């Protein structure tokens, strides 16, 4: 019975949507085409894949309680963002992923609005972190972080102008580490 009801709702929704032209929007500035990296999943102990576009962020915001200080702070951080995308893999052993896994991503970060704002390499720990910002007419349009560690590979792409000060205020909540004070 429930299934039948669900199907009927589905059919009615499809019929009403069919009268609207479906127009694929161009990806917003600051959004990267992330490599799928599906081949890494079988080798990874932990895989995280998050894709939240503007509509999903709006849905998430509806379920953040403005009456709770923590939720309000998260709402504040994501207000005005058009997308949040994360791909993260944790492995049991060091460097099981190919060095060129993210070449296509790095190529995108050398075009158009993207510029590197930080690039840290620590040979002893074999860790690197590259941070890029996409800027248009003096306004931030996106942030990209590529963190390569021996047992962890992480890519973050935030579309829109993320306020790192507001992110700073989240530390200590939701398992978010405390960041050192900015100098």
């Amino acid at each position: 019975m429930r299934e039948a009801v669900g199907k009927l709702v589905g059919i009615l929704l499809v019929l009403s949507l069919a009268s609207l032209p479906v127009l694929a929007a161009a990806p917003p500035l600051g959004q990267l085409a992330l490599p799928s990296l599906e081949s890494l999943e079988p080798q990874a102990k932990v895989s995280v894949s998050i894709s939240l576009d503007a509509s999903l962020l709006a849905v998430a915001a509806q379920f953040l309680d403005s009456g709770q200080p923590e939720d309000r702070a998260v709402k504040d951080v994501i207000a005005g963002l058009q997308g949040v995308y994360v791909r993260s893999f944790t492995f049991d052993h060091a460097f099981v992923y190919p060095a060129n896994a993210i070449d296509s991503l790095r190529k995108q970060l050398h075009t158009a609005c993207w510029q590197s704002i930080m690039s840290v390499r620590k040979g002893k720990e074999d860790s690197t972190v590259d941070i890029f910002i996409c800027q248009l007419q003096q306004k931030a349009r996106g942030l990209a972080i590529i963190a390569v560690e021996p047992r962890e590979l992480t890519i973050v792409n935030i579309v829109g102008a993320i306020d790192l000060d507001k992110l700073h205020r989240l530390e200590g909540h939701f398992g978010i580490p405390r960041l050192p004070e900015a100098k």
Partner: protein
Amino acid sequence: MPDELLAAARAGESDGFAALVRLHQARVFSIALRMLTDRALAEDLAQEVFLQLHHSIRSLDSHQHLVFWLRQVTTRRAIDRLRREHRSETISLDESLGLVAAESDADPLLRQHLQSLIGKLAPMPRAILLLRYQEDLDPLDIAQTLAVPVNTVKSHLKRSLAALRTQLSGLAPIDESGEA
């Protein structure tokens, strides 16, 4: 005033959106026309762009952003269309195509000749030339619009202009691919 029109359009006012269409239709149509070299196709493409604008208008936060968006979406769609259809890059010299503004001060024959030569360029260098000389963008803005490195833009501009100069001076025909 344009920011007010955008605000009105974002609020769902059809008059505001109509005013934005009138304000930018020449820009969008001209890019489409000079890329596709076919009036009917250019009108179709321009209409698609404005329909997409209507759908996406709430994601645009300033008039500057809107103009950037229009240029980007129009040139990308035109480039995709050209590549997909492998359209011939030669065009008719028929003035009724109206590829060049009638009120232009340029010599009519030179206008047509220039348009014919531009129509022989490959999609990317053609788009770069249009953004430079129709839209008056600098190479960095063109690079952002087309999502290509700025050196690629400069290289294409240099080669395209050299080829145009050579052809205009009557020394050699332009390479069909528009590439050096």
